[in-house]
C-alpha cells in the first residue's frame, strides 16, 4: 500500500482540474480550465502546508518528473504536417524561431533589469 499517497495526490489534482473546468464553463471565462485548477491547487497547498512525505507533494512530483512524456502524443502530430512543413518551411521556421528568441530575450531582460532595480 506504499503507493497510496501517490494515488491520493493524483486524485486531488484531478479534483482541482475538475473544479477549474467547471468554474470556467459556469462563468463563461476565456481562461483554460487547468490554469484555474492550478490556482485552486495553489490555494490548497498554501492553506494546508503539506510535509514532503504527504500525498499532496508525492502525487504531483510523479507527474512533474515525467512532464515531457505527456507532450509526446501531440508532438508526433508533426508527421501529419510533414507536407505543409516542407512547402512552407521558410515562414514556419523563421516565424517560430525568431519569435521564440525574441519572447525569451525580452522576458528575461525585462525581469532581470526590474529585479536589479528592486534590489537597490
Amino acid at each position, binding site marked *: 500500500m506504499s503507493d497510496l499517497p501517490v494515488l491520493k495526490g493524483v486524485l486531488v489534482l484531478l479534483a482541482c482540474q475538475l473544479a477549474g473546468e467547471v468554474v470556467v464553463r459556469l462563468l463563461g471565462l*476565456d481562461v483554460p480550465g487547468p490554469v484555474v485548477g492550478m490556482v485552486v491547487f495553489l490555494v490548497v497547498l498554501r492553506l494546508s502546508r503539506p510535509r514532503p512525505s504527504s500525498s499532496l507533494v508525492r502525487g504531483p512530483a510523479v*507527474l512533474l518528473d515525467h*512532464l515531457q512524456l505527456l*507532450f509526446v502524443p501531440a508532438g508526433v502530430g508533426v508527421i*501529419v504536417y510533414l507536407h505543409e512543413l516542407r512547402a512552407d518551411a*521558410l515562414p514556419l521556421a523563421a516565424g*517560430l524561431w525568431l519569435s521564440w528568441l525574441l519572447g525569451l530575450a525580452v522576458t528575461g531582460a525585462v525581469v532581470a533589469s526590474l529585479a536589479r532595480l528592486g534590489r537597490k
Partner: protein
Amino acid sequence: MAPLVGWHPHETWDWLSRSPLLGITLTLAAYAVGRWAHRRTGSPVLQPVLVAVVLVGGFLLATGVPYRDYLAGAGFIGFWLGPATVALALPLHHEWHLVRRAAVPVLTGVVAGALVSITAAVLVTRIAGGGRTLQLTMAPKAATTPVSIALSTQIGGLPALTAVLTILAGITGAVIGPWVLDRLGIRDPRARGLALGAASHGIGTSRALHEDRTEGAFSALSMGLTALATSILVPVVLLFL
C-alpha cells in the same frame, strides 16, 4: 474439424494497429529510450520528448499506421497534461516567498514577453511569405498546448499544426534555452525561469526544474501566466495586425 492452432499475421496486425495498447506501449517505450539516452549522454539535445517524437513518428511512417489510430491509445497519455498543469502549483508553493516579492517584475515581464512573442510570430511569418492562415496558426504558439490549440481554433488557424509548433517551441527551449540565456548574460534564476516558461511553456519548465529549484518555480509561474496573457492578448494584437 478446424485445426486448433493457425497462423494469422494480417488479422493480428489489423487488430494491433487499431488497438489503444499499441499507442500507449509505443509512447512509453520511446520515452523510456529517450530518458535513457538523455541520462547516458547528458546531452541537452537528447531531450526525452524529442527522442520519443522522432522514434514514434518514424515507427508510424514506416508501418503506415495513421496518426488518429495512434491517438486512440496515446490520447490517454496526452490527457494527463491537464492534471500536470495543475501540479505546477507545487514548485510555485515551495518558492512562494520569492514569488510574492517579485510580483511587479514578474507581471511586467510576462506581459511584455507575450506581446513580443505574438507580434513577432505574426509579422515574421508574414514577411517570410506565409499566408494569413499560417500567421494565425503561429500567433498563439508560446502558450502551453491545451491553450494554444483552443486559441488557434478560436481565431481561425490550424489547431493541430499549432500544437506541433507549440511543441517545437518547447523543445527548442529545452535544448538551447539555457545556453541562449547564458549568451545574453541573464543569470538571475528568477529571470531565467520566467523567460523559459514564457517562450517554451511546460517543456521549457521541465528543463528549468532540472536546472534549479527557483528557476523551475518561476518557469511554472510564467507558463501559467503566459497562458492567461496569451488568451487575452492574441485577439487584441490581431485587431492591429
